[in-house]
């Protein structure tokens, strides 16, 4: 399994054809206390870069973009009850949705963990 990052601070873990998407630890630290997350419905088809989810803190609302194209398999229902998971475990329990990749070659445009760390360093 390998993890990729986008310049918009989403991460995706890819396991075969299935990807799990969330926002990075850096992103949650910038947003502050997350109060609400809206995840996409099962079956929704997304193109790379589409608005996929919404994450809200007290003073800001941000769109989360699809890091790759594909079909949503599952949204993280746990976030509806406890959006603070995005703060406490952004790159684990605080995942947003799972997606079936339609074009694995899109991953080539994303950063690996090291490249993303360097990217964040410069911000």
């Amino acid at each position, binding site marked *: 399994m390998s993890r990729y990052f986008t310049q918009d601070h989403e991460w995706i873990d890819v396991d075969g054809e299935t990807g799990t998407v969330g926002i990075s630890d850096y992103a949650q630290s910038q947003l502050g*206390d997350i*109060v*609400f997350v809206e995840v996409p419905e099962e079956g929704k088809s997304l193109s790379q870069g589409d608005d996929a989810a919404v994450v*809200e803190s*007290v003073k800001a609302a941000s769109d989360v973009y699809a890091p790759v194209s594909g079909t949503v398999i599952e949204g993280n229902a746990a976030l509806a009850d406890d*959006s*603070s998971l995005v703060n406490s475990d952004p790159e684990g329990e605080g995942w947003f949705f799972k997606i079936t990749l339609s074009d694995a070659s899109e991953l080539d445009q994303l950063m690996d963990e090291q490249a993303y760390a360097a990217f964040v360093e410069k911000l």
Partner: protein
Amino acid sequence: MSINQSGWRPEMTVKGTDEAAPTFTGNKALMLEEALIFEIGSTETTGVEVAEPVTATSRLGNLARTAPIGLPGLSEPETVRHYTRLSRQNYAIDLGLFPLGSCTMKHNPRLNEKMARLPGFADVHPLQPVDTVQGALGVINELAVWLIELTGMHGVAMSPKAGAHGELCGILCIKAALEKRGEGYRKIVLVPESAHGTNPATAAFAGFQVEDIPATADGRVDTAALKARLGPDIAAVMITNPNTCGLFERDLKEISDAVHAAGGYVYCDGANFNAIVGRVRPGDLGVDAMHINLHKTFSTPHGGGGPGSGPVVLSEALAPFGPLPFTERHGDGHITLVEEETVEDRHPDSFGRMTAFHGQMGMFTRALTYILSHGADGLRQVAEDAVLNANYVLRSLEDVLDAPFGKAGPCMHEALFSDANLADGFSTLDVAKGLIDEGFHPMTVYFPLVVHGAMLVEPTETESKAALDQFIGALRSVAERAKAGDASLKSAPHFAPRARLDETLAARKPKLVWKEPAPVAQAAE
């Protein structure tokens, strides 16, 4: 029945001080805690006596209400006390200087209130035959005339209910005018980065795409960048003048001419008209539409968040597209209403109706009273004193607070500062909360977005020099504490009815209505 059967009351955990023990009530002398009406009222109590119904057979069909509603009542003395106690937990202009930038919190003359309550205005139905409401229509008509004169425009739409509604009105006029010209394909509205959030929200609602215009280093619209973007896809430019940094957009006429040459329209957000009323007419700057917040420039009360009123003045090009209804004064002085019925004859290009009835009549009465009180000379003095007061604040504090555009010249009606000089870990919010302890409402914070940690101070013209000096002294003291890293500022306010409130909790688990608390379990005997 008691609404609150469990008898639950909010717990008052008021801390004592070194000298004093906590009080039984949670009160601190004149700072009084007040429970909710649901905790103190009952459904049997009423403070109103209604005449017994005449005998009649019910004609409610099978719809008579049977289930309890759960509305608590209070007697008149309890009601007066409840709301009086609540009122004392509010800051207000009547208590002191209210320097909220961009909001123009000026004194609300009480003559306005008295006039709005004359039965001839307050106790008149909007659908009475027009012959029975000539005076009410006269108020609308007379105010319309003065708004047109003060802005140098051609017409005015009176019905919009508040500023954002007025913005929408102006943008819909532009949309209608473009469609009439067969140029509905113009889809882009240019909005400066520093604009209030309602501007892009309004343009997007009307189906336009919003593009940002960058600002120059001196806080104004980048005229060259704006002109370079003009073309056949541009519907309009939305500009605030004076802008949200408190600066006059010097190039507005040049911008308007360029926008018109490119086939677009100029919308001006009139939120800051108070700075120029009587001295500059937006019509002379090529503006096509501008809303006027009567609750800002023309002193109608803000009322804790409305009602507002947002008439929109229109250029000759846009006036034919304005909404219904409006008044029309005939040669003999008789005033009629142009409504749906007469629109085909009198106003065929109108984009339609935005609200039931005729707009915020109660606000029109107040605004007209204000305009007549000030007159032409007084209104000009309003703008001058508003600008003088703001510059006095700017120059009195720029040695202690960073003023990002202070070097560039005078400001208009508001002074803009930033958090650049504060100690590490201290923010604009801390300064704001520190001002609360000094007995002032804070300035506008974190707006405009183009300045980091913005603090926007608008004193208005109704403040005396003594009041300004006291405010300047207070802000200077708080700023110095923030620069020195005074940790007590981080937990301010200390003396307000409440300390900082947990907004995260409120948003994560919203409690928007009162619910009967679960009865406390009785301990087993």
